[in-house]
């Protein structure tokens, strides 16, 4: 990463550290959710780098969330252990699903991943013991570290910020590495990649597994703040939001989805606060934004950003 970008990142981080102190209490929560969602979209982008659009990503977040919830509440594991295990659990389930799912491509993969995700969600709903059924599991213990009160949004936000930043850093390095470049090759020119001996199945699986690992961690981060995990937090509606963030933001570069989720979240909050639009109508606004984005802004916000700043290409492969 160039020095200029490094400085930009540090400035942004510093700003984020200071930001909660300027916000009203009930907006501090939103920073936590925003940070978690950034991790969700960036990990999703890794999965899409293979050219397949999966609809199971948010359910993987739920797998991690449930794993962490059950380990911490029922088995007494501290958060610092249950969270990484959450990531590993999501990665493990993803690994199992690779076998059936990657036999499908394109449309079939989309539907298949949707079906598998929905089946998992219904399992959570049907098996009240141990998943708690529709009501889920509540009274989840927060992290513990000395005297820090992780029930308060600001400490929790700082912790989330640290974990998300580290995760983003790892994801960025993966993308820039040989593995990442190979993934790109699989996406754009699969037959060509295969002809030089690249095992496309292996790379697709890797993307899904690693992406699921990080979104599993995001799931743990989210539910331990809320204190409750339910199946409805991980339904197709939420998956659609992830799609919207990624598409509107653009997915050609690493920062595209981040731009998407930040801009749309701020937009959403601004819309609520202004009171122009009845909250019940807001999904329609999202729908319109999504359609407009596809029709008029196919490269997403990052595409506009690129043209506006007329950056020279070559920085992002």
């Amino acid at each position: 990463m160039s020095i200029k970008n490094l400085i930009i990142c540090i400035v942004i981080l510093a700003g984020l550290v200071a930001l909660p102190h300027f916000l009203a209490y009930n907006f501090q929560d939103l920073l936590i959710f925003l940070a978690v969602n950034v991790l969700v979209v960036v990990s999703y982008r890794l999965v899409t780098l293979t050219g397949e659009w999966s609809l199971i990503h948010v359910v993987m977040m739920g797998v991690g969330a449930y794993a962490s919830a059950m380990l911490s509440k029922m088995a007494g594991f501290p958060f610092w252990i249950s969270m990484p295990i959450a990531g590993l659990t999501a990665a493990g389930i993803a690994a199992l699903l690779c076998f059936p799912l990657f036999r499908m491509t394109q449309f079939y993969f989309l539907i298949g991943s949707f079906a598998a995700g929905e089946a998992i969600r219904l399992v959570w709903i049907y098996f009240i013991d141990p998943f708690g059924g529709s009501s889920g599991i509540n009274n989840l213990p927060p992290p513990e570290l000395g005297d820090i009160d992780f029930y308060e949004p600001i400490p929790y936000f700082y912790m989330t910020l640290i974990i998300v930043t580290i995760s983003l850093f790892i994801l960025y390095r993966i993308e820039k590495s040989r593995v990442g470049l190979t993934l790109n090759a699989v996406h754009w020119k699969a037959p060509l990649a295969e002809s030089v001996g690249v095992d496309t199945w292996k790379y697709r699986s890797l993307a899904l597994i690693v992406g699921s690992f990080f979104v599993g961690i995001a799931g743990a981060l989210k539910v331990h703040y809320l204190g409750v995990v339910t199946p409805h937090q991980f339904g197709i509606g939420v998956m659609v939001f992830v799609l919207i963030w990624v598409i509107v933001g653009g997915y050609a570069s690493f920062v595209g989805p981040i731009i998407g989720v930040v801009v749309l979240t701020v937009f959403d909050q601004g819309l609520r606060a202004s009171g122009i639009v009845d909250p019940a109508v807001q999904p329609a606004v999202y729908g319109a934004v999504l359609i407009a984005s596809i029709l008029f802004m196919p490269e997403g916000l990052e595409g506009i950003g690129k043209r506006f700043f007329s950056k020279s290409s070559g920085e992002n492969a």
Partner: protein
Amino acid sequence: MELFLQSIVNSLIQGGFFALWAVGLVLIFGVMGVVNFAHGELVMVGAYTVWLLHAQNDVPFLIAIPVAIIIAMMIGLVMERFLFRPNRTDPLAGLICSIGVLFILQVIAHEVGGTGPAKQVAPPFNQIVEIGESLRIPMQRLFSLGVAIASLGVLWFFLTKTKLGWALRAVALDREASALQGININRISMIAIGVGAAMAGLAGALMAPLQNITPHMGHNVIITAFIVTIVGGVGSLSGAVAAAFIYAAFHTFVTAYFNGTVATICGLLIMVVVLIIKPTGIMGVKVSE
């Protein structure tokens, strides 16, 4: 024994609905290559139209049905003209656009219906037909089964016996070759989505007196339609109809004798298995890409 017979009747009735849902989806995907995620919402629009006209404003049921069909059809045509056609080359974009439509339609339904509990439409035909000692079938259900089968019959006739129907099937089989033969792809796409959306609207209208009407009733429709479509074969309409009745029987019997949620889980797993083993489905033919 009584439960068994009742379940058979229920399976037939549900199968009729599943078939209407799936056939619309297959037409659109087969001919245009795009997945209409808002298909369930077209069904919902049909149901809300009947609620609004018949339950709220005393328009006769038999008039409300065609209105519902027309409204659903018009929405479909608008989607084709402005969303799917510009994205002909990128089906994923079309799918994403249909998700946008899904949100918009749900909000419209919410605004039209207002907050509060599910809407109910009192059945216009509320006699009960009794067969033998133990079999009781509400007239409303028989009516919907009859109309569903009749519509499927009309569709079959259209597709196999008319020139336009043949053109539709040709485009589904091979779009480029059809274009070379002089078939107007745009026109065919409009017809496909028009018919598909009309079937969805009809299904919604028939369902209105039979179940809760809510803005998210489309969720169940799209899941079932996917399962049926995949299992039956993505390009095949007869496969979809067959799969609709088979899946309806499966789901009904499992629900009656065991549990509804388990039935849906199994349905989804069956779909995944089919996707793994034979992605083109039981009767499907590989659609050219």
